[in-house]
């Protein structure tokens, strides 16, 4: 999921860096409060742990194997803000040492892989039952949190690519969301497996931590960020997308019929004149729907026995 340079324009890369640095600044200050003096070796050594975990292939079941991204697992174990710092270190190291991810776009890579994944994984897990005294509900919460954190990071990348004009949203979003559905499932499975083990060996680690504030705040924060994305969408290319272009070129334009798309054909809202405002609203509604679905699903899974 590391974006290389060239896939986003310069102005967007700069914006990503600004947002990333802001996020890192907040994370550093807040992790200070929960980790005390030992945070430096803790976050550093655990960043090395995540790096090693990401690099290796772990057997899952019946001969298949997969990778761990680790953001939400780390957030549940050491708190979301310390996890953000650790994962930022991982992402930056991957870019620096292995050229995995570009320099200009590193801000967005940090946001996707460190900030969004840790915060959303943590928040959704808590929302979905991680605070419950019932162990199974806690694990279910962690499962949902891990899965959705991967999906949200992937979708964020798709939105960034669309806003940057590299890949249109109709291609990027389903491609990223679809491909990361399996990756998310693997992440969720491994996360739960680790938590089960740790619960047996060192239960104090897996007990939910009180010190980090109510998850509702973070869900709202995440929503706000998603809406910021949505508000950038009018800047995406107003030209007809490739499908239409191909249709026009091939003379098929007349034969195209609007498929079922909730009335939001061409990312416009019927009845609203300004195309920019309409696009804004359409993407905003789309984002809200995805987020709402995610949290509803999390809550529903959390309430099931």
């Amino acid at each position, binding site marked *: 999921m590391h974006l290389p340079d060239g896939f986003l324009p310069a102005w967007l890369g700069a914006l990503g860096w600004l947002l990333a640095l802001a996020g890192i600044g907040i994370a550093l200050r807040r992790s200070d409060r929960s980790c005390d003096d030992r945070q430096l070796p803790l976050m550093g050594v655990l960043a090395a742990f995540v790096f090693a975990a990401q690099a290796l292939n772990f057997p899952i079941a019946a001969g298949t194997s997969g990778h761990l991204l680790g953001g939400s697992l780390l957030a549940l174990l050491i708190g979301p803000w310390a996890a953000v710092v650790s994962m930022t270190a991982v992402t930056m190291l991957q870019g620096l040492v292995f050229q995995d991810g570009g320099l*200009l776009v590193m801000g967005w890579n940090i946001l996707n892989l460190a900030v969004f994944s840790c915060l959303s994984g943590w928040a959704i897990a808590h929302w979905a039952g991680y605070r419950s005294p019932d162990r199974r509900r806690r694990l279910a919460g962690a499962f949902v949190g891990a899965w959705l954190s991967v999906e949200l990071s992937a979708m964020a990348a798709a939105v960034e690519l669309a806003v940057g004009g590299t890949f249109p949203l109709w291609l990027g979003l389903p491609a990223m969301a679809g491909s990361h559905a399996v990756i998310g499932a693997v992440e969720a499975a491994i996360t739960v497996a680790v938590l089960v083990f740790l619960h047996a060996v060192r239960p104090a680690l897996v007990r939910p931590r009180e010190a980090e504030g109510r998850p509702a705040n973070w869900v709202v924060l995440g929503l706000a960020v998603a809406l910021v994305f949505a508000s950038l969408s009018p800047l995406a290319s107003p030209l007809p997308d490739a499908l239409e272009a191909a249709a026009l070129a091939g003379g098929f334009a007349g034969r195209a019929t609007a498929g079922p798309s909730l009335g939001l054909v061409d990312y416009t809202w019927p009845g609203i004149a300004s195309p920019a405002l309409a696009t804004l609203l359409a993407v905003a509604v789309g984002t809200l729907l995805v987020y709402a679905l995610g949290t509803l699903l999390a809550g529903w899974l959390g309430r099931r026995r």
Partner: protein
Amino acid sequence: MNEPGIDPGAAWVATLAFVVGVALLPDGGWSGWLAAYGVLLLAALALRLSLVRLLARSLLALPFVVAVAAIPFTTPGEVAGQLPWGWTFSHAGLVKAGSVLARAWLSIQAFVILMVAYPLTDLLTGLERLGLPGLLVNTIGFAYRYLNLIRQEAERMLRARQARAAGKGPAGGKTWFELASTGGLLGSLFLRSLDRSERVYDAMLARGYQGNGPTWRQLRWTGRDLLLVLTALGGLILCWWQGRGWV
């Protein structure tokens, strides 16, 4: 490795200016990118770096080429051709795909030069002098230090596990057996890392650590550094003028 003689912070600024400049050149700015590559070659020669080695390292980072292949099919514009099963690709799309590739590759090359010319610790110190928070920089330093060690521990544990696995699949038909053992493996690795971080903390305390990471290298920009940075910024402005605008 020869000492580059240029402050790492200045090198960072120059590299960033290069990457941004390359990004600002508009789609199809082939001559501009060729000139940029020329700049990189000059830098590599000036630093006495092996070109073959640089090339090899940058090729390792190119798997994303696959993603670029989709661009011609999704970029609107005059149709340039068609695949047997009906997908059309556009001229603009081809140009764009080539441009993305050029920008990405040039950026990787610049990055590789930076990484080969300087030890990582110097680069981290350079970042800190430029304003990146010390705690983050030191965290990266620790992660770098313990990277190989923990990876080796993980590999050993994986090998030990494989040595005990029957090879035929999980016993008793329990499909989550492998998952459980992976959970145990990663969980153990996590605990070992956690415990190690505690011992490292004790070792740091024993040598006087009081809560803030050390900043020991005092790097100051010389006239040469300033010249490099100004040239890089000049090049950046040139690219911007060429691209005529920020978007």
